[in-house]
């Protein structure tokens, strides 16, 4: 078995595709993702924040303070128009004559005098990803509203000091019992599992295909089968190699994620994330790895079984694609709001590992539950390896 294992590892280490998928891709995927996404996001956000919006106000004389505020805002530029109806203004915006139109009713001042609520209209294209224009508008409107409220209360001879209590009689202060780590774990724990678990599969896929279908295609399998070693030894040797590459890929990914996350996070001011990550003890990292071990074994055995069945490399790739989708489904389910680790979800393969990783990152893991997940996944792995060994002894599979 070890002869097969070391020989397979030697071959894999000399294979450029393996090096790319198992080592280089996990090392460089995160800086690329962080870097490119950060660059694109910051440049588009900055551009959107600085953008100047052309506007018109209908009946501006009804709210001169507000009109002045808009006029002096650096992100707004007033343009002239003779259009006044909603339909004409919509058409003008579509024709790119201006970006936004605010309609103040013609009787706004009169209604204000009798303390009647008035509805304004703002017309603009809301399909933009960054709606900074509306944010600036609501900020100005809030300030204008507060000014009007004070004026109204003055007219009613109400003490302006009591303004806050009148406008908002009850205020709530939230006291969060979750620490930073728990908060971040809840938000990002499932995402980390969503990255780690598929990488165990991805890292194992290419070697598995090469060791089954690849051997058939090259004609080396037949020679191997007539060596005086048991088929179990051959399968286990290959299985351990696939498992090793899957786990190495996942470990490199975790390392790369942590290191590059810290480097890039320090530039982007993500101190909270760094603080939370540093709160995760080495024991919990080992537990995460321990949970990845049996699920990677399940993947390795399934991939090898598929690969042994396939006649060619390409056929194996075709069979493995649906397996990837099957694995993503429980992972997506684990990310759904309200899905939590309990005695039922602890028995759903893949989903249980994802939920457990989330709990471990949050620091709220139930160790009995982890033992249940580890045990059940280990049983599944044993069954998958058993099937793989059985499969490897079938002539109809080996010589299709």
């Amino acid at each position: 078995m070890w002869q097969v294992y070391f020989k397979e590892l030697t071959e894999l280490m000399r294979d450029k595709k393996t090096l790319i998928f198992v080592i280089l891709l996990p090392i460089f995927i995160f800086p690329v993702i962080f870097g490119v996404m950060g660059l694109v996001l910051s440049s588009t956000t900055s551009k959107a924040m600085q953008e100047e919006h052309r506007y018109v106000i209908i009946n501006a004389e009804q709210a001169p303070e507000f009109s002045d505020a808009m006029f002096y805002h650096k992100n707004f530029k007033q343009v002239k128009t003779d259009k006044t109806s909603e339909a004409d203004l919509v058409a003008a915006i579509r024709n790119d004559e201006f970006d936004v139109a605010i309609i103040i009713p013609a009787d706004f001042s009169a209604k204000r005098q009798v303390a009647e609520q008035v509805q304004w209209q703002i017309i603009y294209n809301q399909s933009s990803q960054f709606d900074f224009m509306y944010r600036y508008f609501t900020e100005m409107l809030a300030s204008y509203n507060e000014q009007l409220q004070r004026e109204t209360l003055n007219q009613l001879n109400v003490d302006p000091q009591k303004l806050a209590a009148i406008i908002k009689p009850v205020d709530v202060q939230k006291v969060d019992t979750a620490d930073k780590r728990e908060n971040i774990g809840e938000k990002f724990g499932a995402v980390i599992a969503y990255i780690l678990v598929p990488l165990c599969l991805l890292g194992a896929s290419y070697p598995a295909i090469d060791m089954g279908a690849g051997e058939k295609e090259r004609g080396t399998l037949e020679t191997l089968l007539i060596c005086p070693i048991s088929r179990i030894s051959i399968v286990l040797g290959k299985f351990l190699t696939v498992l090793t590459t899957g786990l190495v890929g996942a470990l490199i990914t975790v390392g790369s994620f942590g290191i590059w996350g810290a480097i890039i996070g320090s530039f982007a001011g993500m101190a909270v994330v760094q603080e939370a990550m540093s709160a995760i003890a080495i024991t919990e990292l080992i537990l995460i790895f321990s949970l990845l071990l049996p699920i990677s074994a399940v993947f390795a055995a399934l991939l090898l079984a598929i690969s042994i069945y396939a006649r060619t490399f390409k056929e194996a790739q075709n069979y493995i694609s649906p397996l990837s989708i099957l694995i993503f489904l429980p992972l997506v389910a684990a990310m759904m709001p309200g899905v939590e680790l309990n005695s039922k979800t602890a028995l759903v393969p893949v989903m249980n590992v994802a939920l457990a990783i989330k709990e471990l990152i949050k620091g709220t893991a139930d160790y009995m539950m982890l033992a249940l997940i580890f045990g059940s996944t280990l049983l599944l792995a044993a069954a998958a390896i058993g099937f793989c060994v059985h499969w490897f002894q079938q002539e109809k599979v080996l010589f299709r």
Partner: protein
Amino acid sequence: MINIQELAKAFALGKNNKLSDTEKQDVRYSKDAFHSVRNVSFNCGSGEVLGLLGPNGAGKTTTLRMLSTALKPDSGTVLLNGVDVLRQPVKARQQIGFLSADTGLYGKLTAYENVAYFGRLHGMDEKALKLRIDELFSLLNMHDFANRRADNMSTGMKQKTAIARAVVHSPKVVILDEPTTGLDIMTVQTVLDFIKSLKAAGTPVIFSTHHLDEVASLCDRVVVIDKGVSAFSGDIAQFKALSADGDLREAFLSVLHGGADTPQQGVA
């Protein structure tokens, strides 16, 4: 000594498999199976070279795969130096040196590593393995490319490496499936010389081939397989006698066309 008696092997056909008109006429096809080998019997003694002949798809490779333990026969017996291949496959494998029709090398391993890997799988210790590899590499003129990866080798280099790998454990029986196909003249000569050296060492050698000149120069015995049956089995003189002037091509065709007056049908 190799003794094969009434060997048969069938492969199940797919449920949706529809037989063509030609296949319906072929005796090897039944409703749900393809009887690749129906009845093959022959012997090969120590120091004998047996040439396995037959048209493409006749059942030669399936027969050799059953001899090598890669496939399990449906019926019949295979004895290799008294070891029953069916009952003691692992013990039988220790005695077999098998070269498949594909060179079957690991591309990322060097010639040395390819041969050494199989030596280790046969349980050889490192010292004996090193000596044996050195001996084989000298015999097959392989020292120049010992450290070259199989991916970067010529066809001839690959075939020499495959042969060295097949015999690294000094097998008592050697089975070669078309060992000279696609090789240049120099490499063919090296391979043929190597088979002669095995013969001289008393090792029984079975090799399948389409080259009748190789049969003429090497073989003591000839077996012709046609449609899964050993249509002829006898010594080279008996085979030559099937044609008027000892022409092997004519002899071969006469067996296939059913006109052969085979001295011993089945076991020779």
